[in-house]
């Protein structure tokens, strides 16, 4: 659906050139939800904007649906853009137009007739759940509602691709969840490919199929979302995942712990086996779970537990060895 082929973008500034994107190559398949993550300034937004040529690559090609978008003339580019929906962090709605007119706008742009528009807009309002806000102006809406209008507007012309530029970064948790669910539904229902960028791993965890991690303008890791979370390779990815699976324990508690503290990570189908319980039956060790978390990503569990072990030294050693054998990873936190 999208193929980035050795894309680089360099901005000239007074002092030195800024290499925003460096030699990025990867493909996004038809129908998937693909995320690009990274800290702010990593170049992900700049990369996303090459897909509809809001940003022109300094070198390299961007293929969208088999067409090299960088090689199109003005007219063909406008036609191509009408088939690529885009939503923005700050919604970018036309303030002086009603919800209805905002959604009708891209259809007017692409030259659709009044009858077709009058039929389509109510359908779109229904899809995003804003039928009763048709006559409202953007300033009368909440952030989540504005983004719904943005989504309705983006899919009005029946695009094959939806670009999402930090779509939930200005929203509260509740609206974030609702908007992600809406994007997910649209992806499933209409088969629209979604390319999404975000700096929040939680956003990606809930709806994406594959993830590319960007740092300093380069893609440092690309994998399916479960592997990214369960088995991160690059340091940047590990850091992002760690921030997302936060397992901090207050220092005061850590200092008072007697015995060993181990961090156990479960992954894949084995995460459902009662490993800890088996170990307790085998060895004379008392356990105390201080912190625990299980996440389901694409329906597969990832579990992290912080367990305090008390007992005689030999038993504890064997206990840990047993855990190492039967879980994804087990490490002693307080050496």
């Amino acid at each position, binding site marked *: 659906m999208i193929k980035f082929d050795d894309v680089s973008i360099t901005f000239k500034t007074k002092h030195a050139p800024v290499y925003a994107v460096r030699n990025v190559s990867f493909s996004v398949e038809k129908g998937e939800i693909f995320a690009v993550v990274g800290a702010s300034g990593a170049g992900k937004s700049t990369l996303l904007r090459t897909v509809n040529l809001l940003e022109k690559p300094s070198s390299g090609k961007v293929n969208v649906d088999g067409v090299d978008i960088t090689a199109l003339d003005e007219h063909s580019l*406008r*036609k*191509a*853009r009408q088939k690529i929906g885009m939503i923005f962090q700050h919604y970018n709605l*036309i303030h*002086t137009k009603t919800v209805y007119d905002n959604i009708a706008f891209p259809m007017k742009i692409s030259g659709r007739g009044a009858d077709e528009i009058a039929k389509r807009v109510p359908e779109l309002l229904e899809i995003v759940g804003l039928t009763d806000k048709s006559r409202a*102006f*953007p300033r009368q809406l909440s952030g989540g509602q504005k983004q719904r209008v943005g989504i309705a507007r983006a899919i009005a012309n029946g695009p094959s691709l939806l670009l999402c530029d930090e779509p939930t970064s200005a929203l509260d948790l509740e609206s974030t969840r609702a908007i992600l669910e809406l994007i997910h539904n649209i992806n499933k229902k209409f088969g629209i490919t979604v390319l999404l960028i975000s700096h929040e791993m939680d956003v990606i965890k809930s709806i994406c199929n594959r993830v590319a991690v960007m740092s300093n303008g380069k893609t440092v890791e690309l994998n399916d979302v479960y592997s990214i979370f369960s088995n991160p390779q690059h340091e940047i990815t590990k850091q992002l995942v760690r921030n997302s699976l936060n397992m901090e324990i207050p220092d005061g508690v850590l200092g008072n712990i007697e015995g060993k503290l181990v961090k156990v990570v479960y992954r894949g189908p084995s995460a459902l086996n009662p490993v800890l319980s088996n170990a307790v039956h085998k060895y004379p060790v008392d356990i105390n779970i201080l912190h625990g978390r299980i996440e389901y990503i694409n329906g597969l569990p990832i579990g992290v537990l912080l367990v305090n072990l008390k007992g005689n030294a030999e038993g504890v050693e064997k206990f840990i060895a047993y855990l190492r054998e039967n879980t994804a990873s087990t490490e002693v936190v307080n050496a």
Partner: protein
Amino acid sequence: MLKQIISLLPDLGKAFWETFQMVGISLTLALLLGIPLGLLLFVTDKGLFWENKVFNAVGGVVVNIVRSVPYVILLVILLPLTQKIVKTTIGPLAASVSLSVAAIVFYARIAESSLREVDKGVIEAATAMGASIYQIITQVLLVEALPGLIRGFTVTAISLIGYSAMAGIVGGGGVGDLAIRYGYYRYQMDVMAATVAALIVLVQIVQSAGDYAAKKADKA
């Protein structure tokens, strides 16, 4: 006093009509030429679709020069041009030439700054939808800037009522001229007071109408 004012009424009526002519002609031209000029100044600026450093700089300087010349001087400088265009330098029509020039550049700057207020993200969204530059200008830029354009139009109209008083110097007539001739030159303070009062009412009406229209247009 009342008698005096009543005897003044025909003159006052004529003067109001002349003011309307002058302000009306120059405001119309400000709309027709000031908005396009303001648009050109805006879209040739850095980062916009017709970015053109030379045009933007030259246009900006010309507008600034015209705007910094006091209106009375502009009126005199433009007398030869006025002679060419309307074949006379006397009367409201003649005064309208210099008034229009002042109005066009004045409103062009105001239009430019109103356009600058338009959220860049909205322009970007329209571009991403595949809108043409013409569509963006007519259906996004001018629509989003409308409240500002209306407010600026009110300011321009009121300034022009003030300027038109000076047009009396070249026999342009109008309400301001009446106040100067009767009130100042002939020491008829009551007549001056009456005309000034009439001007105040006129300005109030223009301002209120402008505010109302801007409020109607402003949904952001």
